[in-house]
């Protein structure tokens, strides 16, 4: 039951994502919103999804040993969760408010930085033996 709950939550969130994309596309066809607004809306949802997922990243069950190395691995995971959460929020805000083509540049830069810093943190901090 406990393992199926995250899967169920993920499916519900994926469903909500698809439904909101369809709603935005439908609104665009009805000329209620522009194509730009519909695209921005989808990008905002993607950014928020990343932020929400990153928020719960550290809640996943892990088996870090009760040692200095385990502590460093835990710290690296926590740091990467913060980075991805910030990247998700920046992605969403940039997609919503920043004019083209800077919105895409900022969004890609934010996520790219989070990925790079996470890899560096795990290699330099987490991977080192005590």
């Amino acid at each position, binding site marked *: 039951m406990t393992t199926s709950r995250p899967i169920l939550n993920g499916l519900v969130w994926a469903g909500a994502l698809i439904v909101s994309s369809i709603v935005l596309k439908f609104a665009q066809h009805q000329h209620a919103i522009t194509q730009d607004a519909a695209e921005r809306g989808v990008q905002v949802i993607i950014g928020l999804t990343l932020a929400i997922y*990153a928020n719960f990243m550290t*809640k996943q069950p*892990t088996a870090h*040993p*009760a*040692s200095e190395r*385990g502590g460093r691995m*835990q710290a690296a995971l*926590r740091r990467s969760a*913060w980075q991805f959460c910030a990247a998700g929020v920046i992605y969403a805000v940039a997609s919503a408010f920043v004019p083209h083509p800077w919105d895409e540049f900022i969004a890609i830069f934010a996520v790219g930085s989070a990925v790079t810093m996470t890899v560096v943190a795990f290699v330099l901090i987490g991977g080192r033996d005590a």
Partner: protein
Amino acid sequence: MNNVFKALADPTRRKVLELLRTRPMTAGDLAEHFDFSKPTMSAHFAVLREAGLVDMEKAGKMVIYRIKLSVLEDALLGFAGTFGLGTQRKAKILKKGTAT
């Protein structure tokens, strides 16, 4: 969420979380940092577990605790620590206890 606020409102429990930030620790290791009795510490651990802020694992006779904070809870912990939430109330209770 109410459980999270309740858990983070107490300075002792916040100190436990700060200690667990450094590395996963046994209940004994954690208890060494405080002057409280074992049942009191167990009660604090129970509140943290109930709020989902720590994870408990049994390794033989030892109980290992790991921090399990989401980014939002981590930010709340930092906020509560910065503004010293609950410290004045605790000091008042301690003062009352010594006076009687």
